Structure formats: structure tokens, C-alpha cells
């Protein structure tokens, strides 16, 4: 930092493009990737899968980012933000893929910033408010276990781009699930108070777990993981019964719209803005 003015320093060496600071100048995350769709792939279904998985990731990333400055310890704040960043990266790749194949040519921002809550296809578990740390951990355990199991299957998807996004995601999600499992055991097998909160979190999460099992067939794998973790933590299994409606069909709780209002506020207020 040799210059007096921090923004001038940041701008140095970027004379030929629009990036004025590190981390700006977002471009298509699939830039330079071979994006041809193999014959025989149902592009509408492919786009639907990409949007649903991207919406889960974007909404989860937003909730995880809300822990920043609020987590119990700095290390956990960093961990939750990092997990959110991985998910945000997955969302960007998936939205870009959806826009290439659904015929609309939309970019990632069109999916993230200008759709209303009714158009989102995330499961409702992702959008519920963070609650306490126990709730956020239990939710992360369920979502990361499901996503990991599902991505592990998508690795063999006939679309090579989705398969590659999944293969990369599997490595990241393995760390997310392990993090959530570690904390679940620590809290479940911790103090009376932490155990009580984990029980409560499992009760609250329970009704929203069923929704994950309706869309894709990875139920047995997820249940197996939840059983291992709850046993080690001395906790009961969540009771999952289906709720009416489905996040995948655009039915959401009252919590999604305020989350999106915050997430989309700058893009909607300044439609011409670039970043």
C-alpha cells in the first residue's frame, strides 16, 4: 500500500478492465467452460435441477452469512462464513448452467436478484431463521448430509457441466457435514443446556426434513448419517413427517420474502449497478 488513497492503490494495474478492487469484476463463473449439452439430455429437467440446488445453496449461504459478527466464537464465524462461501460458489455455477440450458440465456444475477419468493425452489428448511447456534448446526447437518448424498449421485449425471459442479461440491460438502456432525456431538453430549437446545432444534427441524426426501431418492443415506450422529450425541432422531406444500413447487414460509428483500435490495434499487 504505497498510495495515500486506498482506492487508487486498489485500482493500480487494472487499467484495461473494469475491476477496480480485488474481488470485483464478477463474470460468468462458467467462463471458458465447454457448455455444449449432450444429445438426449432433457434440458428443462436439467435447468429445474440446477435452479433447485442453486436456490438451496443461495438461501443457505445468506443465512450462514447472517452469523457473521454474531457467532459464539470467531472460529465458528469464520467456519460458517466459509461454508456459506462454498455454497455461494456452487449456486453461481448452477445458476449459470441453468441459464445456458433453459433457453432464456439469463445470467446468475437474473436468478439471484430479480426473482420473487414464489419463483424460488429451495426447500423450506433452508429459509427458516437461524435461531440459536444449535438450530443452525442441526439444520446444516441435515442439509449438508442430503446435499452430499445427492451430489454424490449427480457426479454420474449425463450433463458433464452439472456432473463436474457436483464432483467439486462433494469435496466441499464433506467438510461441511463433518463440521456440523462434530458440533452436533459436542453439543448433544455437552452440558445439560446444550443437550436441551439440541433436542429442541431437532424437534423444530423435524417437520421440514420430509420435504428433502420427496424429490430425490437419497433418503436411506441421509437417515443413516443422522442416526450415526444422533447416537454418538445421545440425541433422538428427528421425527420427519411431511408438511403440506413444497418449497420445490414454490410454496414457502413467511421467512423467505424478507430474506430475499435484503439479499436483493441493492440490485433492485440500482438496476444499472455492476459488480
Amino acid at each position, binding site marked *: 500500500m504505497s498510495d495515500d488513497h486506498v482506492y487508487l492503490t486498489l485500482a493500480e494495474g487494472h487499467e484495461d478492465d473494469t475491476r477496480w478492487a480485488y*474481488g470485483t469484476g464478477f463474470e460468468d463463473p462458467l467462463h471458458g467452460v465447454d457448455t455444449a449439452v449432450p444429445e438426449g439430455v432433457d434440458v428443462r429437467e436439467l435447468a429445474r435441477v440446477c435452479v433447485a440446488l442453486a436456490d438451496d445453496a443461495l438461501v443457505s449461504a445468506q443465512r450462514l452469512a447472517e452469523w457473521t459478527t454474531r457467532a459464539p466464537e470467531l472460529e465458528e464465524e469464520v467456519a460458517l462464513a466459509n461454508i456459506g462461501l462454498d455454497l455461494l460458489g456452487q449456486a453461481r455455477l448452477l445458476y449459470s448452467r441453468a441459464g445456458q440450458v433453459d433457453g432464456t440465456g439469463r445470467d446468475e444475477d437474473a436468478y439471484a436478484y430479480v426473482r420473487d419468493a414464489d419463483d424460488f425452489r429451495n426447500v423450506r428448511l433452508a429459509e427458516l431463521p437461524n435461531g440459536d447456534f444449535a438450530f443452525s448446526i442441526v439444520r446444516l447437518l441435515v442439509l449438508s448430509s442430503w446435499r452430499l448424498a445427492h451430489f454424490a449421485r449427480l457426479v454420474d449425471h449425463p450433463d458433464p457441466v452439472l456432473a463436474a459442479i457436483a464432483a*467439486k461440491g462433494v469435496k466441499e460438502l464433506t*467438510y461441511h457435514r463433518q463440521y456440523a456432525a462434530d458440533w452436533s456431538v459436542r453439543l448433544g453430549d455437552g452440558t445439560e443446556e446444550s443437550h436441551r437446545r439440541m433436542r429442541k432444534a431437532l424437534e423444530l427441524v423435524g417437520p421440514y426434513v420430509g420435504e428433502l426426501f420427496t424429490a430425490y431418492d437419497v433418503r436411506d443415506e441421509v437417515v443413516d*448419517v443422522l442416526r450415526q450422529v444422533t447416537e454418538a450425541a445421545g440425541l433422538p432422531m428427528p421425527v420427519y413427517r411431511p408438511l403440506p406444500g413444497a418449497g420445490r413447487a414454490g410454496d414457502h414460509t413467511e421467512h423467505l420474502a424478507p430474506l430475499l428483500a435484503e439479499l436483493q435490495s441493492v440490485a433492485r434499487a440500482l438496476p444499472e449497478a455492476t459488480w
Partner: protein
Amino acid sequence: MVTALLDARRARQIAGQVPDPELPMLTLADLGVLRDVELTGDGTVVASLTPTYSGCPAMAEMRADVAARLRAAGYERVEIRTVLSPPWTTDWITEPGRRKLAEHGIAPPGPAPRGPVPLQLSATRRAVPCPRCGSRDTGETSRFAATSCKSLWRCHTCREPFEHVKEI
């Protein structure tokens, strides 16, 4: 033909020397994110990069840096491709790269896991040797550190905290 080969090799060297924006002691070649550099028939340099993590914010920076360096070296037509498959693994960090990490107090990764990684709920995990004093009496303080690719550790012998590049 010989000139073209030399030119391709020179382009590869130039692209490979670009430092990683977040681990600046490493070049993109050390890190293993520069997958390929080739010269096409019309003189375009095509450099292929692979992201470390899906959300790595340094990816756009790396692309821009590689293109800028190649242009500055006289290659007028530069194309940067992104390779998603196979996904990046820490096994691609070169031996010099691992040495440089350790010299900067960052414990290099061990061998990356092959295939699905099962949940591990017992307390016994592999110890990462301290990059400063070499002690194996260390403990993980956080699975995530300043960047997604690292975890935070503490050495119980020399009492220094250190970072470790996680195996993926």
C-alpha cells in the same frame, strides 16, 4: 515448428509464474491450478485454469492476472479456459509448492482422500506436524481458517498457532 514449441513453453513459464492471490508464496503452477497452456495454429495462447473451491473469490483475479502477464509478454491473443473436471485436488500442489508453504509457516496437505469420505465421529484424527518446530503434538482449533482451503492448528510444543492446507 521449433519456434512454436519454444513459444508455447515460454507462454507456459510466464503463466506458471503468476502468484496465487491468496497464497502469494505459491505460483499458479505450484498450486496446480494451471492445467495447460497451448499455442493454437493462429497464435492464440490458450491457458486452462481450474478453481480450487467453487466459491474461491480469487478465480477472476487469477484469470485476469494470467491474461495480463501473457499480453505484457507480447502474446496478443490470449484465451483463458476454465476446467471444472477433474476437480482440483491438493495432490496437485507441487513439491516446491509444499516446501514454500512450510517455509511460510503453513503446514502442507497430506495425501488427498480417494473416493467418498465417511463421517468420522471418534476423536482420533491424524496429527499435522508443526511447520515451525516439527512437533507432532498439535491440535486442530478450527476446520476453517482465513480461506476455505485452510484449517487452523496449534502446536502444543512451541505453542505457535499455524495454518494447514486441508486435503481435498
